[in-house]
């Protein structure tokens, strides 16, 4: 392992070191402002490190992790999202809340796990990354210790995540038994050479899909999502919805690109069914929800379905579309949960639709952000979500996935209905003057950090919606590195 190898991993080092330093910092002096400031600085320096590492890429560090443009792109995305979520968290936690500094600690662990996933080319690194991510999420979800529903959500997540990890391990064991290796390239090579017992190999990978599908919260592995989103504090929900899913998606794209899913029609069918079911079930179940966080949960299920359509297009344009959509989705979901976080009154999250009644007339800024986020989720122009949906539909049409694309269109119309439900409530005339103006005991929290976070998100949301060219070019280069590294010319 050369020094350049070590340097190339610097984003991971930064995430790990930040977690340790925070641990010590909290032990020495528990001060929220200090911890928040340090975390923001560390996340920002991680982002800078990603850009600096681009010069060292592509590079395979040990047989476990690869640092290429693809991994760095997603690592950068996670650090950026982490930065924003930390900003939102700084405003979310009350000065009166106990032990709020550990949120950042667990956040960095999650960043580390997701970044490892983005770079893993070996089952060991994949599983390590996954477990690092999961462990931090158990903490994050049940973070407000005094709140029953958070603890319930955390335990639900713990039990189900462990079960899905068991599936994953068993599936990997089957594949290992067939191929005799744990690195994905050898799996691909053995499968390509026809040296594996196909049914067993496919069964193994299918069992792995259970574990992957659980993290992505796609139908039929979605049951935990609404409860966890509802129970977790809003910044943690944002983290589950964006970084955790993003890490797994980054892995998924690379994994199936390496083993070349086109060779396994049965796996393609499985994913097509998952995608279709996620789009339909996610949107239909969202219709009946009366809580904003649950609506966002079901909405995220359907959005993962859209993403899988792009993934199934199985072309470079499909990967580009998926990457673009993921970026748009991360920005949008963070903005949505960020607004929820900032609108939340003392002690509980603003969740019931009624909490949002007439919010536009009382808190126009926050309501405008949430409006933009919902319009972006619905795929209306001027927002990043519009271009994302356009890109995904283009990829689907380009690969003639007509059934999936038509489901996507129909599901989008259904989806629009529940986004409009939220909008309607937000713009309704308020019944009485703002309730939260009346109750604000103790020191007031500062909205500055969260406000800055939301402002950045709005700029990105509109910026990508109007001038997407820069990001598209970057994604094209990224996808090209994946194609180049994994399938060298002639292979």
């Amino acid at each position, binding site marked *: 392992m050369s020094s350049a190898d070590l340097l190339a991993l610097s984003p991971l080092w930064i995430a790990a070191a930040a977690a340790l330093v925070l641990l010590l910092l909290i032990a020495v002096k528990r001060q929220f402002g200090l911890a928040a400031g340090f975390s923001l600085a560390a996340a920002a320096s991680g982002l800078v490190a990603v850009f600096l590492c681009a010069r060292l890429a592509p590079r395979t560090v040990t047989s476990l992790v690869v640092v290429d443009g693809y991994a760095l792109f997603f690592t950068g995305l996670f650090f950026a999202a982490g930065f924003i979520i930390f900003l939102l968290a700084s405003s979310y936690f009350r000065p009166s809340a106990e032990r709020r500094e550990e949120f950042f600690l667990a956040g960095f662990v999650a960043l580390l796990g997701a970044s490892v996933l983005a770079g893993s080319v070996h089952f060991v690194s994949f599983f390590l990354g996954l477990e690092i991510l999961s462990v931090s999420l158990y903490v994050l979800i049940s973070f407000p210790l005094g709140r029953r529903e958070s603890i319930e959500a955390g335990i639900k997540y713990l039990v189900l995540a462990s079960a899905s990890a068991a599936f994953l391990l068993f599936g990997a064991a089957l594949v290992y038994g067939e191929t005799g290796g744990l690195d994905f390239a050898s799996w691909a090579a053995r499968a390509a050479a026809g040296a594996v017992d196909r049914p067993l190999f496919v069964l193994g990978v299918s069992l792995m899909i259970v574990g992957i599908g659980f993290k992505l919260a796609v139908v039929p592995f979605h049951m935990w999502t609404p409860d966890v989103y509802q129970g977790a504090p809003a910044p943690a929900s944002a983290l589950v919805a964006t970084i955790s899913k993003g890490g797994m998606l980054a892995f998924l794209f690379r994994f199936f690109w390496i083993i070349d899913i086109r060779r396994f029609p049965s796996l393609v069918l499985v994913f097509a069914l998952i995608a279709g079911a996620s789009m339909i079930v996610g949107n239909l179940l969202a219709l009946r929800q009366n809580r904003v966080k649950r609506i966002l949960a079901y909405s995220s299920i359907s959005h993962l379905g859209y993403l899988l359509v792009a993934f199934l297009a199985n072309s470079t344009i499909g990967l580009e579309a998926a990457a673009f959509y993921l970026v748009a989705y991360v920005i949008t979901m963070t903005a949505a949960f960020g607004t929820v976080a900032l609108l939340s009154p003392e002690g509980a999250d603003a969740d019931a639709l009624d909490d949002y009644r007439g919010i536009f*007339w009382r808190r126009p800024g926050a309501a405008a952000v949430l409006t933009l986020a919902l*319009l972006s989720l619905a795929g*209306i*122009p*001027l927002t990043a979500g*519009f271009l994302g949906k*356009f890109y995904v*539909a*283009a990829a689907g*049409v*380009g690969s003639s996935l007509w059934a999936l*694309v*038509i489901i996507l*269109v129909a599901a*989008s*119309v259904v989806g*629009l*209905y529940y986004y*409009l439900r939220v*909008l*309607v409530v937000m*713009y*309704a005339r308020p019944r009485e003057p703002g309730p939260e103006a009346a109750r604000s005991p103790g020191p007031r929290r500062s909205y500055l950090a969260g406000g800055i976070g939301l402002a950045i998100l709005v700029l990105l949301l509109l910026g990508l919606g109007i001038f*997407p*060219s820069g990001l*598209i*070019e970057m994604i*094209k280069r990224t996808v090209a590195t994946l194609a180049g590294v994994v399938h060298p010319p002639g292979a």
Partner: protein
Amino acid sequence: MMLFWMLAILVVGGILAWAAGRLNDRLPRWIAVCALGADLVLVAAVWIHNYRAVSLLESRSWLIELRWDWIPSFGASFHLAMDGLSLILLALTIFLGLVAVVASWTEVRTRVGFFHFNLLWVLAGIVGVFLAADLFLFYFFWELMLVPMYFLIGIWGHERRVPASVKFFLFTQAGGLAMLLSILALYFIHGRATGVYTFEYAALAGTPLGAAAPWVMLGFLLAFLVKAPGVPLHTWLPDAHAQAPTAGSVILAGLLLKTGAYGLIRFVLPLSPSALRAFAPFGMAIGVAGILYGAKLAFAQSDLKRMVAYTSVSHMGFVLLGIFSLDGTALQGVVLQIVCHGVSTGALFILAGAIQERLRTRELSAMGGLWGHAPRMGGAALLFALASLGLPGLGNFAAEFLILFGTFRAAPVFAVVASLGLIASTIYALSLFQRIFQGPKSAEAPFRDLGPREIGVLAALALVIIWLGLYPQPVLDTSRAAVAAIQSAAAPGRTMGIVSAHPACPAAAGPNVSPHVAGEPAGQAGRGKGGQR
């Protein structure tokens, strides 16, 4: 650049109006008036400057265009272009926009800044739709105009505004997404055939589609027939029109429906002649059904604004009939009908809004004998009711006559059935007038007659409708070249017909302009093009 400024003025004006709304309620109105006034001056200047040039424009060339790279990796560009058809629709958009602002001067009292922001942005979206020469950009604007319209209905609408606004949004969005698939299919078919992946209108318009043609056309049809509205897909319209505030109703009826008609002319007609010929009888049937069904339901309504809304369905049926007759004369009539219907229905909605503002109800049964209180309002209503029923001398007559004339050549049966609509429209228009203004007096309280502001607005609309009834030639001349180009692509072999003769340019009687006569104005066209960029 001029095209960009037209959009930019509306967009920036909208943001300014929103910001100004925090200061006081009058400022946003004046900002909106100024923005639209500036645009109106621009459009008028372009029209007058290019009046000769536009009617002699060669087919498939633009009067003014503007093209910036936008997303080169998609092959999408910010490409705005104007021909005679766009020019007329643009003039209508700005004119009705101005009318809508002035007409709702006293009606809207809450969130005035945000109201005018939405108003100007929906107009910007519509202007964009009429100008986009790139299908990606077109789709962008098509979707963009929904959101402000949704807010206009949902926030400032009447008692059942929320369901109406949601229904409006869902219907149009569903149609829009179907169109998205068609645009993408077109994009890939063209890209695979030529290797050039682009959303450029001029490039995609002639793509040979083969077996995919009916499906591609279906997507476009769904989007445009929802908007236009074609009869089974019209159910969002009465709710949205009735619940919207006056300005919203004027824009919905006068402009948003026209985007559907425009889309049919601009995108569906040149798409695939064979698929179009197969669909044309169904299209005409939808049009005729709309004419008769809309008229019948209009007669049956007890809500004033719903009644006017159904007359829109009926009038837009003429537009659909004319479009799918594929006849040049009928298409010219369609353009005229688009303008006249926008003006006359806009005026009726303004009157309906004025009555509702005074009586606090839209129930026809609560009205009656208003002429005694408000003769000026009664006179205006009579004029526009007569326009609506197609009295000769008013614009709608000229338009419907041309449509029926053209359709008769193409499909006599449809034309005969459709002309029954003229009888039906007489019934509903006169009954509308009688139920409101004649009979025993209902309003005991003093009923204010029209004020100077309302008279000004209605007088402007009346002048336009009379002008178009007596001398529609400028509109026909302006749109002739553009319509001829599209018509010859849609139905090769059928000639343009009678209405193209311009007194000053005898050679313009057919699509082929003889070179020696066309030389001078064509040079003008070239200069106009160069000078405006």
